[in-house]
């Protein structure tokens, strides 16, 4: 089977973009996907990693200062006892959720456009959860005692408080990371075997051979592997919903105006997927170009993700409307004040930036011209994440800073350590992602091969109405 020629299609807005440009055979798929790993290191990549390493060093410095001085090095105070730390925790963990949604939920719904983006999205999940996990550990004050969070038979005879959402969080986040990692690694095994078998040097063959665990593509392997993969997707689906629900309980279970609301779990989950998809786009738009895999990660994928951002953005908007409505309709003056304070208090700039980025900007995605423009999508994806970060900042800091009694009011100003930790996690996350792109296939070769077989079978059997056009391509509006 040879690659179909690039044919131009009349610009019919009702026809979707193809899932895969051309129909490369198995060997070509493998070569295309592995090429970024075998080719010599590029200058641009090296410069980005260098830049990232500076950020990692800054992160290390800020962590050291935090450990040496204690969390007094941060701008946190009373009443703002939670600030950048928890804002960043919630932001990062939310970003991670898009990866699981793509890899697990879209698999169960048989959405084939997940196939060529799931690997990158899951890697993003893992790195985002790592960054998220760093913050509560740092915020413990004495991070060397992190194991006190787990129920272990201590000499004090004490157990953790199982009725606290903060403890549920410990279980939720650690389970989430473990399951995401197992799911990602299991999906990676056939491709690691391809890497082992396609490697030219003995050391590469040995290294990838060890990580491939001896995968031989045997029917005995596949029969366990396939059901295992499907079941892990089935488990990851409710898990991802539970994680952000439990994160939202950290706030909703308290009695603080602005936090104490029942809409938080669905509102947080929608916000997580909203910001996560934005981060996937932020990473994938440059990555697919760097990898030269624009024929596997096509405009169809980008457009579909834009649609998910629009849909979840509308859910988030509904959350904004409802929490403000209940603040007014509930008749609780403290609750009403908390919301009035967001748009009229000292942090009003954050509120209005949040509304611009999260409510107004995503509306551009209604227009096909805009959501199929790579540059526009990339800018929107970044603005959405700015907006979602500010949403968490507004929920956490702005709700805290004006307590019930005006004598308890305060203001929060981040210190350089706060900023360094924040910038440091972004840099560490970016560096890990760059290393990932260099070390393992960023698109699942074995799943793309299966997808090609499905598309071939559909094209041969007539399939659905849209199928004949899938083999054709059209220029991307970029």
């Amino acid at each position, binding site marked *: 089977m040879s690659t179909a020629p690039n044919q131009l299609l009349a610009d019919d807005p009702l026809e979707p973009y193809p899932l895969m440009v051309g129909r490369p055979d198995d060997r070509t798929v493998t070569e295309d996907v592995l090429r970024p790993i075998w080719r010599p290191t590029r200058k641009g990549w090296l410069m980005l990693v260098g830049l990232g390493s500076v950020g990692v060093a800054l992160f290390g410095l800020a962590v050291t200062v935090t450990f040496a001085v204690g969390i007094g090095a941060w701008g946190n105070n009373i009443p703002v006892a939670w600030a950048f730390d928890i804002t960043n925790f919630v932001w990062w963990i939310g970003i991670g959720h898009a990866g699981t949604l793509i890899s697990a939920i879209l698999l169960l719904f048989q959405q084939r456009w997940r196939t060529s983006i799931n690997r990158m999205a899951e890697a993003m999940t893992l790195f985002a959860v790592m960054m998220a996990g760093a913050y509560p550990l740092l915020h413990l004050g004495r991070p060397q005692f992190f194991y006190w969070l787990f129920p272990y038979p201590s000499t004090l005879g004490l157990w953790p408080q199982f009725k606290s959402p903060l403890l*549920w969080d410990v279980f939720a986040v650690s389970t989430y990371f*473990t399951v995401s990692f197992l799911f990602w690694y299991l999906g990676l095994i056939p491709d690691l075997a391809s890497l082992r078998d396609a490697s030219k040097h003995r050391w590469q063959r040995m290294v990838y*051979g060890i990580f491939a665990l*001896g995968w031989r*593509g045997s*029917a005995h392997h596949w029969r366990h592997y396939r059901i295992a993969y499907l*079941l892990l997707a089935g488990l990851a689906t409710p898990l991802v919903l539970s994680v952000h629900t439990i994160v939202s309980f950290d706030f909703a279970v308290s009695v603080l105006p602005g936090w104490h609301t029942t809409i938080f779990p669905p509102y947080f989950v929608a916000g997580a997927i909203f910001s996560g998809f934005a981060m996937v786009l932020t990473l994938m738009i440059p990555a697919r170009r760097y990898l030269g895999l624009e024929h596997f990660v096509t405009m169809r994928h980008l457009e579909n993700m834009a649609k998910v951002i629009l849909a979840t953005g509308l859910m988030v908007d509904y959350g904004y409307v409802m929490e403000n409505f209940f603040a007014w309709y509930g008749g609780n003056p403290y609750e009403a004040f908390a919301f009035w304070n967001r748009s009229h208090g000292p942090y009003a700039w954050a509120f209005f930036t949040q509304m611009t980025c999260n409510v107004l900007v995503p509306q551009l995605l209604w227009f096909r011209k805009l959501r199929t423009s790579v540059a526009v999508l990339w800018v929107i994806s970044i603005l959405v994440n700015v907006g979602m970060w500010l949403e968490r900042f507004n929920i956490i800091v702005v709700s805290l800073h004006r307590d019930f009694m005006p004598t308890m009011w305060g203001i929060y100003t981040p210190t350089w350590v706060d900023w360094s930790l924040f910038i440091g996690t972004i840099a560490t996350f970016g560096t890990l992602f760059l290393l990932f792109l260099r070390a393992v296939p960023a698109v699942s070769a074995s799943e793309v091969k299966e997808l090609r077989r499905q598309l071939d079978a559909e094209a041969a059997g007539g399939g659905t109405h849209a199928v004949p056009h899938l083999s054709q391509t059209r220029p991307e509006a970029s």
Partner: protein
Amino acid sequence: MKTYVLAKFADEGAVLSAARALREGGHRALDIHSPVPIHGAEEALGLRPSKIPTLALLAGLTGAATAFLMQWWMVGFNYPINVGNRPPLSLPAFIPIIFELTVLFAAGAIFFGVMILAGFPRTHHPVFEVEGFRSASIDGIWLSAEVESLDAHPMVDQLRTLGAGQVSIVPEDLQVVTP
């Protein structure tokens, strides 16, 4: 002495009919290697459905029971703490951790179940001795048969008549023969 006979086939249909023919001829120790799962390979090789789902169910139930018993005993009996006069045994508060441990145990059982049932990690295997077998994870479809060394050459002939392309023999001393 055990010997592996490896044969490359041109397409999925050919390897499936070859596997069926060999099985009808009484050969049981067969395997098909391919870069993507082949529909019908399990039936052609006579493999039973995977035990992974059962394992996952049992592990999930174990996880749920562990989480429930742990919380029930720790805060209900061993060291009850009165917070806001809530009852020490409040099941709704236990649900999140019960759910998380159910998922954790089941996912662990699935992953490590695959490791054990598929015999991983096993970074070396006689089939890797054949240079051409590298294609099995890229684009090649291979059939491997485990035979006594005396039966290796008859097996080669049989595979050839069944439409195999390249055929290799890997004896236990790993000196590959390509007849």
